[in-house]
């Protein structure tokens, strides 16, 4: 690929909330003051020349930018589509109408963590549930596609049935995706309060498999308990059957970073991914995006990460699951071990079982229509 197909750009370092597990704040992504519109417009011109097709706007909270409309006009003018990742609380009827009018918005992803204010607001702040639901309603009134991300943590893990009912029945949304609070950004400070214990992970896995079956595959995950339940049950089945290996496993193959997209921090630094914001590849309007994409040695190394065998790591020594494992997210691996070329300890099945976790019944995998999701 000559240039990235898409870019994830953090358009602001500001947010009206401070969610306890936010990956952005207190990470390398939490960098500098916001770039001016002029700087972004120069970059959009380069993106047009590179035939980049889609932008995902995140932050911080993208709707906090006072000049968001002009910003998006610049994207539209340069022949791209866009999506936004938001906490939903600043989405007014007027901005929803504007997004619809552009005809270029793929979706707005809104975070909903609970079925009622007490569970949603527990990590996100008082009043955020009502405002987020109002934001979703405004988007839907104007026909803007809405994607929902539910982040599972210690304070909502017993509310998953209620969340599914709220989203799929009461709000009649077509689907939603899930993940869990990961050891990134602010979550590292608040890990005890928000990150699931092994017992709670077991609970979440079982609940999500049952709900996915009940709602006919309308719940998806690329990370977190639902993805882990599916992946780990497959690994356990392979172990019990004594399989030599599983296709593509036994290596650091769990992440497709730098295959078709790159990211930009709020300060204009180009990085491989928002989860790998400590890897600085260059700066917009100073370094050629095409050169960074084609020639940067760190990107080449990340693209070849899938060739690194797990047997190289002392961490994996003696693991019965080694030939069925893919090593998971390099961003989480970095925050936990200081190395991105390392398996992520947080997603280790052996560790999970050692910590007292147990896998759900394999029968729960039956009758599941799988849906993908982005991490």
């Amino acid at each position, binding site marked *: *690929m*000559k*240039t990235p*197909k898409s870019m994830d750009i953090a358009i602001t370092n500001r947010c009206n909330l401070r969610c306890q597990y936010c990956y952005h704040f207190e990470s390398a992504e939490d960098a500098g003051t916001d770039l001016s519109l002029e700087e972004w417009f120069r970059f959009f011109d380069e993106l047009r020349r590179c*035939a980049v*097709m889609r932008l995902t706007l995140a932050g911080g909270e993208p709707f906090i930018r006072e000049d968001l409309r002009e910003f998006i006009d610049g994207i*539209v003018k340069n*022949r*791209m*589509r866009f999506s936004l990742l938001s906490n939903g609380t600043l989405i007014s009827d007027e901005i929803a109408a504007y997004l619809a009018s552009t*005809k*270029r918005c*793929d979706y707005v992803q809104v975070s909903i963590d609970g079925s009622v204010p007490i569970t949603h607001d527990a990590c996100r702040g008082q009043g955020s549930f009502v405002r987020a639901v109002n934001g979703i309603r405004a988007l839907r009134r104007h026909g803007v596609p809405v994607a929902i991300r539910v982040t599972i943590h210690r304070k909502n893990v017993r509310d998953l049935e209620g969340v599914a009912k709220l989203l799929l029945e009461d709000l009649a949304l077509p689907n939603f995706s899930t993940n869990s609070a990961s050891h990134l950004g602010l979550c590292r400070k608040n890990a005890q309060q928000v990150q699931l214990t092994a017992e709670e992970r077991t609970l979440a896995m079982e609940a999500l498999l049952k709900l996915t079956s009940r709602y006919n595959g309308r719940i998806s995950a690329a990370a977190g308990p639902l993805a882990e339940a599916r992946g780990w049950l497959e690994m356990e089945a392979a172990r019990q059957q004594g399989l030599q290996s599983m296709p593509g496993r036994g290596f650091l193959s769990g992440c497709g970073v730098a295959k078709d997209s790159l990211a930009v921090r709020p300060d204009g630094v180009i990085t491989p991914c928002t989860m790998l914001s400590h890897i600085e590849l260059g700066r917009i309007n100073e370094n050629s995006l095409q050169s960074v994409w084609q020639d940067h040695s760190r990107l080449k190394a990340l693209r070849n990460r899938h060739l690194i065998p797990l047997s190289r790591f002392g961490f994996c020594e003696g693991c019965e699951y080694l030939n069925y494992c893919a090593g998971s997210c390099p961003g989480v691996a970095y925050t936990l071990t200081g190395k991105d070329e390392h398996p992520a300890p947080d997603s280790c099945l052996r560790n999970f079982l050692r910590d007292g976790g147990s896998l759900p019944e394999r029968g729960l995998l039956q009758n599941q229509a799988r849906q993908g999701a982005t991490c």
Partner: protein
Amino acid sequence: MPDRDNPVANPLIVLREEFDDWAILFDPDTGNAFGLNPTAVYVWKLLNGQNSKDDIVKKLRDAADGVPEDVPKHIGDFIQSLVNLGLVGYETERTQNLVCR
């Protein structure tokens, strides 16, 4: 000046060329993307209003060996499919022709 009978690529459409000479046509208004083989990429680049279908066939015969006899039909069908998808159009009548008399 483009000829009204010559096909013109919609200027909104993005052509993403790849290393293997294949490409993607991306319509940002619909989000649809279409794969093009190298011959189709060659033809797409000639859809600038300066070339008729016959011009394109001639240029393709000059540029490549072993062009099949029935290539005019293939080119015509390809251009028509692009027209049907809204990716290509034809120059509209001049404004002065539309003034009420």
